[in-house]
């Protein structure tokens, strides 16, 4: 899942993420522009819906965290 996400960051968002534990916000990779793009892409890629209430920093802070978040949401449906 982390590899898939890293590839997806590279190909869809044009962002080179060094590792699954890189803090995306501290590294300046995520900002208000691509954050919304990221949401849209995740929803499409993983066929899920992210509601505004789910928007917590920690869910998206690292690729590892995103993977965990997506896994939780998928199993909940």
């Amino acid at each position, binding site marked *: 899942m982390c590899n898939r996400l890293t590839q997806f960051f590279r190909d869809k968002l044009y962002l080179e993420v060094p590792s699954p534990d890189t803090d995306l916000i501290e590294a300046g990779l*995520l900002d208000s522009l691509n954050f919304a793009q990221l949401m849209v892409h995740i929803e499409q890629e993983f066929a899920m819906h992210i509601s505004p209430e789910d*928007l917590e920093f920690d869910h998206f802070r690292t690729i590892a965290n995103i993977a965990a978040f997506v896994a939780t949401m998928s199993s909940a449906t």
Partner: protein
Amino acid sequence: MLKAIGCLRGDRVALLMRKSPTAIVAILGILKADCIYVPLDPASPVPRLAHMVASAEPRCILAAGPTAALLDALRAAQQSSRSIAIGWMERETVAGTQVTAAFSRHDVESCAATPLAYRNGPQDTAYILFTSGSTGVPKGVPITHSNVAHFIAWATRYFGISPSDRISGHPPLHFDLSVFDIFGTFAAGAQLHLVPHDLTLLPIRLAHFITASELTQWFSVPSLLTYIAKFDAIPANGFPALKRLLWCGEVLPTPVLMYWMKRLPSVSFTNLYGPTEATIASSYYTVPTCPDDPTAPIPIGTACDGEELLVLDERLQPVRPGQTGDLYIRGVGLSPGYWRDPEKTRTAFLANPNSRDPSDRVYKTGDLARLGGDGAVYFLGRADSQIKTRGYRIELGEIETHLHALPQLKESAVVAINTDGFEGATICCAYVPAPGAAVTPAALRQELAKTLPSYMLPTGWRMFDALPKNENGKVDRRQLIDDFGRDR
């Protein structure tokens, strides 16, 4: 403390820290020391910061937060031998390797509390802000105490800001909108509520902050309003304490305005317009009723006190109502001119052709405008390749200069396409790899990020075997805009 380390009247003091009470105190200290504050964005790449430091030549940099590595890098990148003192505004000692602070917060706090005399007057420069430059380097805009005082006087009167107001502080210190937040609040004796930087990405938490802080005034760039609207983050009962909502920096899409006005029927909504060169804002338009047509444009309105909007033709003569012309600004908001750049100043700040007074200048905004039948001025767009995205002003030429410096590209061009999204304009890069070079958009972006701030990095990328050219042999930008527009 600043005077103790040798700061003289007119010296620049740079500020390298995020907005905080400490930063605001630092600004006040700088102003009281008869100096000029130069706010630097700690998120900027080192080369860009180094350029601004080299241009402003500050006597001192006041720093706080995780900037130790940045200070080291700046010291390393410094061309001149003139040393810049560092004032470390935190309680713990700075953990840099090369940098030693000339003074720290302890020193500041142990100074006497008696006020010192200051000598600055209205014509003295209060701050210098840097804006994107089309030739590749940012240009400094000095603004005087008088420039600011006039705007604050108009704004506090017009908006009726009083001590019971609770004002938002969202724009960062390197945006001049922050000057209104800070000094408008202080002038009125109101309360300033700094919005935590993190909340910008989390619309529900931002809405909660507005409610919990019982803000009476919200002032931000339109893209944030669009972002909140996109997530429908305004609570069902609105923001009960909110009286006024102001925006400035770019066009607010009318559908977004309609969303906000319907959800907050008792709030007044005001569009403010004005470039950095004319101080914070130069015109205003309070929307009388919620528009019912999502395609109706919102005007930039009429000039603030002491200022004038002029819509002129190529001969600098006023156009007829309804005719498109170049937008010029005249009056009390005009900067004295670009920092140490007489040539750029001459091109943009012109003598008023309709006046005999040589000190009567007009600033050419580069914006196109039209005078409406209702007496309000309507903004129509740019005459050049400057764009606004998320409130940031960006010269596409600055981005192209950095791209052209990359050896792995044979050719490149940057265009902006307008989307219906909250971003404003989307920056797209068309590129041709150099022979034999293996190039990916992610790698290009990573390379550019070394010298350009994140908001200037293209988000659309497309590789070409050769860039489309028009009959003059120049890059056919219209074709590129069509190509990128189709991709979306």
